């Protein structure tokens, strides 16, 4: 009885200390999340159905579906279908990243994992574009492929007519796509390589003794072992499917057929390249993007995680 009466206050104190510690570590981040994520997204939802009330003061709004009529206009051919172009470009960027970028990253990681000659240099160089600001890298890239650059030089030597690819559609978007793909292996390669390093060596050695070639080892041993990382990369990429923007701001500001959805929203908020901003239209477009991406993400998640998810 006396033991119980002594231990209870101690336990209470320990419980209090534990809870105080948890609150101390989680308190501010949770408040931050409620303000800058929950409130912002709820407000964004409401803004999709609002327009500014002119002459009624700053931030005065009225509820309307006008934003969606504007979106309908933006989808029409008379407005050059800027949103259709943005949607198409965004999806192309995502698909290229998954179909081309990810397999190449897996192969690169595999050869680095197998310690190919010079693998440390290759690994460092592959990540190098990620540490350079895209505003600087784009300047270098644009000048390399621009008049007088390497592309010009090579085409001249081959006797082909040179035209700056960034000045016209569709080559401008294809160039940006090439830029994104060729400089985008770094992060995935680090993650995949790190996952490969945690694969049990005994498994790969046993497979090699059984006569497994490099391709069989990659497909039947390595890939299943690193699948949690691969699937996470795919799911996270899909979750951001419509948020893929690319370095459009530094390249073209969305001109010459290079608009992406995410950059269009950025442009509507910042007014860069147009001089006008429209926060309400940006929210309405964002709402539609969420509605489109929601089922796609669920399907992809289901496919990559399979039945285990259930």
């Amino acid at each position: 009885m006396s033991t119980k009466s002594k231990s209870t206050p101690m336990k209470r104190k320990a419980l209090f200390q534990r809870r105080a510690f948890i609150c101390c570590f989680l308190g501010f981040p949770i408040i931050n999340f409620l303000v800058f994520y929950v409130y912002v997204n709820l407000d964004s939802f409401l803004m999709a159905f609002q327009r500014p009330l002119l002459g009624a003061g700053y931030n005065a709004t009225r509820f309307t579906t006008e934003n969606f009529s504007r979106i309908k206009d933006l989808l029409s051919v008379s407005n050059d279908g800027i949103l259709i172009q943005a949607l198409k470009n965004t999806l192309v960027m995502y698909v290229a990243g998954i179909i081309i970028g990810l397999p190449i990253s897996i192969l690169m990681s595999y050869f680095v994992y197998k310690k190919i000659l010079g693998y440390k240099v290759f690994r460092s160089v592959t990540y190098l574009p990620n540490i350079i600001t895209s505003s600087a890298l784009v300047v270098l890239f644009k000048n390399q492929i621009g008049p007088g650059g390497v592309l010009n030089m090579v085409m001249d030597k081959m006797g082909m007519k040179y035209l700056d690819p960034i000045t016209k559609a569709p080559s401008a978007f294809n160039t940006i796509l090439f830029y994104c793909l060729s400089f985008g292996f770094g992060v995935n390669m680090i993650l995949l390589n790190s996952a490969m390093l945690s694969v049990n060596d005994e498994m790969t050695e046993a497979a090699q003794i059984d006569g497994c070639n490099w391709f069989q080892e990659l497909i039947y041993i390595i890939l299943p072992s690193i699948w949690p990382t691969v699937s996470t990369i795919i799911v996270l990429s899909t979750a951001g499917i419509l948020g893929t923007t690319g370095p459009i701001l530094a390249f073209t500001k969305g001109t010459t057929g290079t608009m992406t959805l995410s950059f269009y929203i950025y442009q509507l908020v910042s007014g860069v390249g147009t001089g006008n901003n429209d926060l309400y239209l940006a929210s309405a477009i964002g709402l539609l993007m969420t509605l489109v991406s929601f089922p796609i993400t669920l399907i992809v998640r289901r496919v990559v995680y399979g039945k285990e998810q259930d």
Partner: protein
Amino acid sequence: MRSLKTIIKQRKSTSQKIVFTLAFILFSIYTLYVLSFFVFAIVCALKQDNDTYMMDKIAVKLFSVSKPNFKNFTEAFDQLQVVLQGFSFWKLTWNSLWRTITSAVLSVMTSAMVCYILVFYKSKFTKMIYFVGLFVAILPLYGSLGASYRLMENLGLINNPLNMIVSISLYGGYFFYMYSFFKTLSWQYAEAAFLDGAGHFKTFTRVMFPMALPSVSALFIMTFINGWNDYESTLLYMNEYPNLSYAVYAYSENQKYVANMPGLFAGVIITMLPALILYLCFQNTIMEKVHLGGLKG
């Protein structure tokens, strides 16, 4: 008796050797491709003047340099000041430094503290927070940039250093990377510390966090580099506190009117240097300490 490695080595077929040689060649071509941009920047930055640059451009000889002019680098400093009126190179560097370091420290430390609780202090509440995190990561909501801008504006956080509080984010700072790292740490060290009389806070700061430091450092460096390179959010929220990346963007935009291409390339190189040096110093930490597991609910 032959060792296991000898047996494996002998079994390597010719086709395998061909594939690895091919991979080596492709890797080498890719390396040359990436490095060519840096060589190109250096060569163009050393051109005598803009006229030489233009003549070489017309003659398609941009990759050659006869008389290197190192003055372009000092001129780049002055030109940055002209483009961003009133902001000297050192002011821009200072803005880059304080903004990046503050944001990276807040973001990564918050992420480490949140993940520590979620991994080691399991309860229904912490599990719920993790599941909300999964939901947020897997099903992001688009278009909140407008609402976010309006909120920041209403709170007076546009062009205000206090907007760094946004970095104290529940699911920021490479949340899932951090979470997957903390899962690999053993709780037994903390239990031993508790037995020695340490409290929760002391156990975190003196025992668990130092063990997490290599991975936390890697994520800090990645966050730092991302922050250093960010110019889009500067344009949106902090254009009165421009950083070096923004300066390069503004400079390249301005080149359409004030042409001094060698100066621009010199400016580009100067901007790249800090992140490049940091990367070269800590590349092994980044390469070996960052990992991401599955994302299952």
